[in-house]
């Protein structure tokens, strides 16, 4: 097949073409056809993440994601991955606070095989002690890697657990060590039956595919799975914070650092757009305020303002995180004071039109860049749908940023970057001996 190629950037259309199908059993399917290459991204998003967990079984969403690769009644452990990888596929999965997503980026000729295997593990997953016990150990090793032995993993966990007093975002996606140690196979079985069914999932096929043919295939493999009804959705509202919270965390570290979290909004709130532009103005690139003020002169290894951008933003109100890692030998108290001065400068003087224009163009560029990839196109559609029920937001994304004014940014800065609304965790370095005296890291 020969495609007409056009090299006029001005004529380029950023809209993603999407065709939606709703199966009788509640399954939602999006097909995003694009035939440039004989490849596609097959994605299955389950609407379950750490926000659906209960205290005592934290981390089960992520551990269960691992179990989905451990075999079915007819396939051995990891055979799912081996079969699709042998066709050229990239196979992986990830768990977040709000959802669990599985994907296979593969040659389009193997779509049916991918769907067949996904349906097999949805219907016939093998959950027994033989596979559960080693996988629990793998996850405990992963937790040590990502949280315990990493420079700031435990510090960030402290931040979330101090900033949220009631909402499930207070625990890490990977779960608390004690919960991982005591979780049972029975917990996994219950979780599987509650959350893994057509009514709670969205399939996205992005790339070389015909919508109607895909629909027929999905009906063939998933259409006969009954929906047991939607699991109860947690509706926890974190109460407004009424004053700064400060926590000290001691560990072996070469540097002092602090992480400050400010309660903001979730994906479906319009303030998410000015807030994201604000993060770019403060710390996006080398011309940003924080880079010029703190990183370039060597006062800090890093000073940044971070908030996941749509559609990666959390479904419920997330925290905007200010990360400040002092340069070795630089006192943290002075750094913290100068950072708040810099933040206060934005609150009092606002941002400039040049800064806003730069941030908007950075967003436009990043948006265009991500649309080169079937995988990201699929994620954009799937995540907007899962978290807001409106996949069409993907095609209004650029406009949502373009509409933001300097006054919007100044308003959200003043509204959210308040001292009463922040939680600060300070990393205080200690020697290995003192660290051991303080007790086990877990």
């Amino acid at each position, binding site marked *: 097949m020969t495609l007409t*190629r*056009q*090299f006029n*950037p*001005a004529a*380029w259309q950023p809209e993603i073409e999407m065709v939606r199908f709703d199966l009788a059993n509640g399954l939602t399917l999006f097909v995003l056809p694009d035939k*440039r*290459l*004989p490849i596609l991204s097959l994605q299955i998003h389950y609407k379950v993440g750490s926000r659906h967990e209960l205290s005592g079984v934290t981390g089960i969403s992520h551990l269960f994601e691992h179990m989905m690769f451990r075999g079915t009644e007819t396939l051995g452990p*990891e055979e799912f*991955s*081996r079969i699709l*990888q*042998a*066709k*050229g*596929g*990239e*196979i992986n999965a990830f768990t977040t606070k709000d959802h669990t997503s599985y994907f296979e980026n*593969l*040659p389009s000729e*193997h779509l049916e095989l991918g769907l067949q295997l996904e349906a097999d593990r949805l219907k016939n997953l093998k959950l027994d002690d033989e596979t559960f*016990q*080693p*996988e*629990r150990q*793998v*996850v405990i*090793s992963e937790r*040590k*890697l990502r949280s315990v*032995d*990493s420079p700031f993993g435990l510090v960030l966990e402290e931040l979330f657990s101090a900033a949220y007093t009631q909402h499930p975002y207070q625990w890490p996606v990977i779960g608390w060590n004690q919960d991982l140690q005591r979780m049972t196979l029975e917990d996994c079985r219950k979780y599987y039956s509650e959350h893994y069914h057509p009514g709670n999932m969205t399939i996205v096929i992005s790339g070389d595919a015909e919508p109607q043919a895909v629909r027929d295939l999905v009906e063939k493999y998933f259409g006969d799975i009954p929906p047991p009804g939607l699991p109860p959705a947690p509706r926890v509202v974190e109460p407004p914070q009424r004053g700064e919270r400060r926590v000290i965390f001691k560990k072996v570290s*070469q*540097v002092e650092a602090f992480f400050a979290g400010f309660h903001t909004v979730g994906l479906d709130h319009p303030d998410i757009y000015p807030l994201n532009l604000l993060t770019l103005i403060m710390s996006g*690139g*080398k*011309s*940003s305020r924080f880079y*010029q003020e703190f*990183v370039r*002169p*060597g006062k800090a*290894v890093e000073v940044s303002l971070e908030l996941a951008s749509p559609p990666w933003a959390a479904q419920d109100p997330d925290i905007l995180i200010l990360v400040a*890692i002092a*340069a*070795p030998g630089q006192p943290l108290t002075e750094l913290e004071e100068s950072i708040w001065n810099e933040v206060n400068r934005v609150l009092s003087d606002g941002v400039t039109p*040049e800064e806003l224009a*730069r941030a908007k*163009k*950075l967003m436009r*560029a*990043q948006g*265009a*860049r991500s*649309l*080169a990839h*079937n995988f990201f196109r699929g994620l954009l559609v799937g995540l907007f749908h899962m978290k807001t029920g409106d996949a069409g937001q993907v095609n209004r994304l650029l406009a949502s940023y373009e509409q933001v004014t300097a006054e919007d940014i100044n308003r959200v800065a003043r509204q959210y970057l308040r001292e009463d609304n922040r939680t600060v965790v300070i990393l205080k370095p200690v020697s*290995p001996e003192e660290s*051991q005296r303080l007790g086990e890291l877990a």
Partner: protein
Amino acid sequence: MINYIPEIYQSSLPGGLNLIGMEYDRVPWVSLTFMVKRGAETDPPGKAGAADWAAEFLTLGTARRNQLELATDIESRGAALKARGGFDAVMVSLEGLAEDFPQLMATMAEIVQTPGFPEEEFPLLKERRRAELTHLLDEPREMANIRFLKLFFGDAPYGHPAQGTLESVAVLELKDLQDFYRREFSPRAASLVVVGMVEAAQVEPEAARNFGAWTGGGSPSPTYLAAPEKLCAPGIYLWDRPELTQSEIRMGHLGLPRSHPDFFALKLVNYILGGGGFSSRLMTRIRSDLGLTYGIRSQFHFRRAPGPFVVSTFTPAAKTAQVVKEITRVMTEVERDGVTPQELAEAQSYHVGHFPLGLETPQGLARQLLSVDLYDLGRDYLKKYCDEIRTVTLETAAQAAQIHLRPESLVTLVMGPASQCAAALQELGPVTFIQES
């Protein structure tokens, strides 16, 4: 017939610079990479980081503009500038929206041809690098990688980290960066790679206008091709880090140059051994069967000169010796018995099926072009790639495994709490305790 690989265009500019590119029409993006085919392997003794620092320094000001003016101009276009030195090459990349292509090309030329080497930026760069390298001490995986290469290669060119060391921070001078630039930034050993929504008919004159007259640079260093004469003795080396809960493990020996004729056979053998994720024997044994790690992989670092072959993993400290033993056992089985027909067939179909996924984005295409050019793989390399994979046989794979996997020569570095792993390691053989450097 594979018809989805974009045609490569190539021309030699009047000053001698090689221009190579591909047209790309999916998104209005353009990726420009200036590649100098000399890198950290040319760092003078004791001056680790010279090439990489020189690369970053180019972004800190030109003859015409200071660092802030440059960054503001680039970022106001939504573009991104990165410059880094690795082994075998230094890359300066500038990517952005295709509508800004002429400005991006002019900016790239300005950065590469007229660096300002502003003196006031050097102490700041030095402080930033010192801070980053100190902070790196808290990253167990990075520290294990760096320590392994130093242990293995010693003072040979691939033995130091490209970004420099805390020791070299103290001695590097602005002159070292300028020397690297003046010596190696020459059209005789460089290429400009352009991939994006810009037609070749526009790229070529624009490149000629901006780079055609450039003849700069001295005589580039001779290419580094030989294997080092002296390497670390095989055995177990333990770096005690009592504060860690897991051990980082690196096991390796000398690998091969990119030009070696066994490249494709060994690529497939390594995929089966430890490069292929859940399709590999190491992942199956150490993670899936035993639950002893979250991740394990093996890799041949194919460079101009023989790079290292390394198996990398981590495990709860008490399990360290068991993992070291299992890795050696799995590697010995592949070396002795080769791979099975099914494993080879699946490794081949993976590489053939996966090939178009690497051509999806401008960055993916640029990576392919840079590799083709850096290692002289030939203009038809991408078109022949799948056939090269398919022609590997069970016999050639077994032969490659037997010749190039050498479990008896493994240098094993363990970085972890000695109190929990030393005794068990000593049962496997003598253990040499080492320090940070």
